[in-house]
């Protein structure tokens, strides 16, 4: 492929400062978005390698490539990186920053300096997390849940890891505040609430959870440090404390956090399905309201992680009931996406393939959640590899695939170049197959009774573990292929025009890559809905 120079380089060549400082001190939402994207993908690749190492260890019973302590540290670090450094910021911080202001017709977010500060909080958190692995008493070995009393007793470097997570919490809160304000204050003329793309509605719901729930995480993490350093005794049964109290505090944040992880992904899918069907999203208001409903109801179900913990049976009754209620808005979303396809004009471009894979994976993850929400069946499945399979289905099969969909959908907009489609489709197929083989096998071996966080297991669990490990290799090949192809696309892909997919939202009406202030001299005026494709023509590329 010969490289064709871009005619327009947009915000890449417009900056008050030049060179690396033009990035590190930039308050432009697009530059900050690109910096997040770069860090998140890097951390993702690191944590994927750790995940593959875990799977390799599990290919046979007994120590295969590592002993128990290394395994425990590896799943802890894998979990912490994936949750706090990858999935939580993945779509909101990276694509939210890139896309949100343009989609509502704004020139930037409300507080650009605060936006840069949250990026620095992210970086400090990431650096602390990495230092925690290599210093002190060794890499943390508590699991990403930091359950007491184990986490207050272990000699590994928990204090540093917890401080890192605290900084990441700040980053997330600041981004949330910024997005809520931006959506309220900076919508362009004509951009009423009924014309907001669903992606904006999901970012809005997410931002509220970020603002309201994350302080809980901060408090909980600080309490762990108080417990470890000063022996505060809040969670120590011998001194009148309560270890179960910790679990409530932890999940009051961390359950809503799973909606921070999934909602923006649902938003991405709600942009892609209409675009590649050339049809309005089915049930716009149901989609918008169900996002808010998920954010609200999702804050009331935290103790469904604790049916086996020793909590009272009455609490189990209540939390099981609420958990089933929160399943409804997700089901509505799935039905509406599928109905959008009806009588459309469907193009299976790479973003669309990833979006369809999202629907399938997320359906499996959500349906598996029903078995975990019912009290009796959860008693058997809780803390087995079924749970590990389940949350990978929602977070990786769901949010992960939505992130890949977003990469394939928006990278051409922000780099001005198109990747090649054939390798993208092959990579997608490998990812889809590898993903399902790996995690379906993990769910199955969990139903048989294999507990999670086991580096060693009984011989009867081996067959399915081998299947899962082989699946993870297919997955790995798919990931390599996808990222290499995207990288090649960024560097020397064919230049694209404003609107390669024929989308109707505002970001596709300005040049690719967009200029510094997005909209040139005149502020945009919005006259039609986000999914109104009449007269919209896709540019050739």
């Amino acid at each position, binding site marked *: 492929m010969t490289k064709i120079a871009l005619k327009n380089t947009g915000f890449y060549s417009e900056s008050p400062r030049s060179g690396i400082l033009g990035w590190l001190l930039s308050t432009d939402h697009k530059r900050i978005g690109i910096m997040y994207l770069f860090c998140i993908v890097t951390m993702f690749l690191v944590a994927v390698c750790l995940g593959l190492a875990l799977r390799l260890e599990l290919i046979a019973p007994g120590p295969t490539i590592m002993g128990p302590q290394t395994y425990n540290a590896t799943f802890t670090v894998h979990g912490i990186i994936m949750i706090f450094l990858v999935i939580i910021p993945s779509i909101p911080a990276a694509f939210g920053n890139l896309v949100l202001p343009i989609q509502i017709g704004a020139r930037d977010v409300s507080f650009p300096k605060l936006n840069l500060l949250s990026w620095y909080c992210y970086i400090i958190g990431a650096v602390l997390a990495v230092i925690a692995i290599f210093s002190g008493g060794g890499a943390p070995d508590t699991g990403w849940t930091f359950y007491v009393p184990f986490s207050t007793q272990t000699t590994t470097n928990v204090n540093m890891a917890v401080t890192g997570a605290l900084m990441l919490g700040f980053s997330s809160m600041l981004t949330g505040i910024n997005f809520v304000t931006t959506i309220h204050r900076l919508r362009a003329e004509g951009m009423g609430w009924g014309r907001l793309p669903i992606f904006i509605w999901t970012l809005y719901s997410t931002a509220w959870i970020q603002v309201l729930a994350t302080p809980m995480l901060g408090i909980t993490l600080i309490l762990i440090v108080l417990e470890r350093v000063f022996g505060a005794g809040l969670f120590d049964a011998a001194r009148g404390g309560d270890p179960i109290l910790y679990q409530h505090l932890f999940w009051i944040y961390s359950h809503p956090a799973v909606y921070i992880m999934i909602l923006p992904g649902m938003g991405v899918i709600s942009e892609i399905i209409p675009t590649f069907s050339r049809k309005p999203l089915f049930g716009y208001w*149901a989609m918008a309201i169900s996002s808010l409903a998920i954010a609200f109801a999702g804050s009331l179900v935290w103790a469904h992680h604790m049916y086996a913990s020793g909590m009272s049976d009455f609490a189990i009754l209540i939390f099981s009931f609420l958990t089933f209620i929160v399943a409804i808005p997700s089901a509505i979303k799935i039905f509406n996406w599928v109905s959008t396809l009806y009588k459309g004009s469907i193009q299976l471009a790479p973003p669309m393939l990833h979006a369809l894979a999202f629907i399938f994976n997320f*359906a499996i993850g959500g349906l598996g959640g029903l078995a975990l929400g019912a009290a009796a069946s959860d008693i058997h499945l809780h803390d087995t590899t079924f749970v590990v399979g389940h949350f990978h289905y929602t977070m990786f099969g769901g949010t992960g695939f939505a992130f890949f969909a977003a990469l394939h959908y928006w990278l051409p907009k922000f780099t001005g170049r198109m990747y090649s489609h054939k390798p993208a489709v092959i990579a997608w197929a490998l990812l889809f197959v590898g993903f399902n083989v790996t995690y379906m096998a993990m769910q199955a071996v969990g139903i048989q009774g294999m507990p999670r966080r086991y580096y060693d297991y009984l011989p009867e669990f081996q067959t399915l573990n081998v299947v899962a490990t082989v699946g993870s290799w297919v997955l790995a090949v798919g990931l390599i292929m996808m990222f290499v192809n995207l990288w090649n696309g960024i560097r020397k892909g064919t230049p694209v025009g404003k609107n390669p997919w024929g989308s109707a939202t505002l970001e596709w009406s300005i040049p690719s890559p967009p200029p510094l202030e997005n909209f040139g001299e005149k502020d945009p005026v919005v006259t039609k809905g986000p999914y109104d494709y009449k007269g919209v023509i896709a540019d050739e590329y």
Partner: protein
Amino acid sequence: MNQLNNPTAQAVDNVLIYIFGFSLILLLGITVVTVYFVVKYRRSKYPEPTSQVHGSWLLETIWTVLPILIVLTMFWYGWTNYVGLREIPEGALEVKATARMWSWQFEYPDGRKESKLYVPVNQPIKVLLFSTDVLHSFFVPAFRIKRDTVPGMESYVWFQAPEPGSYDIFCAEYCGVGHADMTTSVEVLSEADYAQWLQPLEPSATPRGLVVLDEQGCLSCHSLDGTDGIGPSLFEMAGQPRQVTINRESKELIIDEEYLKLAIRDPEAEMVDGYNPMMPPYDEATINNEDLQAVVNYLMGKAEAAKTPSAGAQLMDENGCLGCHSTDGSDGIAPSFKGIGQREVTIERDGKEITVKIDVEYLRRALLKPNADLVKGYSPIMPSADYLSPEEIDAMIQHLLQQ
């Protein structure tokens, strides 16, 4: 997944089948419709959409109300069957289970302690759950029961086994390095076997010291055969040097009775270099002075010989030892057992050839790590007997020494 016909498993499985059944139907429905639409309305056939519908009140109401009804049945079914897991039938036998890093101890109403859960068939069993350190979780997949053990709190599970057999117990709540190895089993005995098991043990065939080591879970961190573990191995300790840290100073001492007693009563007072301070102290309430002396005697190699080595003969028979080892002095695949207690052997240890006198410690290592010290002239093919309990190993050793 076995043992479907016990009450707790049935309660859980019915809910699982109900929910998974519905889920499968829904998943198939969604997938088939999606694939059908994607194929039928592909762009090559329909360059422009043939509908611009924005929604449908009727459809959207249906697919909001219908799922609500379905999930409410799931919720209710799951709850009522869960109640069955909490209500214990009358006449249950109560056994106290204590979890500690990283082993289980079961205590019977008469004070008897075991590392496996022996129960009679067809009787409801109530297991009271305790923890001495961090969270653990008592999980028996065959009965679909699971409950955390929480320090400072008592909880319980119950089950009833309709058939004799052995069922795995796992620790399901993450608890540190030994988590995956914190496994033991429920041994369901027939009425006759249980009655026999209930008989008081013959005046201990096993040295008291070893019984205590086993009951207290010491062996989950310390091996008896020289393998390094979470804690240092208890293999051949008497008179050995140890590098320990006392008051932040590292110095070498020789293992003696005093050292061992302090190491048990107050482990952090003398930390062996290279290990983490995670061993709990065992006070008099846990191991009384008499038992402490028995443990120390055992570790110093002064344990009195077992009185009934005949069990050892049976074990060797059952485990197929005699397939390779003869008892009449004839040479086979492996050295003969005849006169093994009086012999010296030449072995290869750490690449060097040395000649040692065969004693209890030597034999224990030979059984548990057969290929670590290789007897000259033989190949490393013997399987380890580490699936046997320490008591069984000891019975075999006592038997061998008398050959």
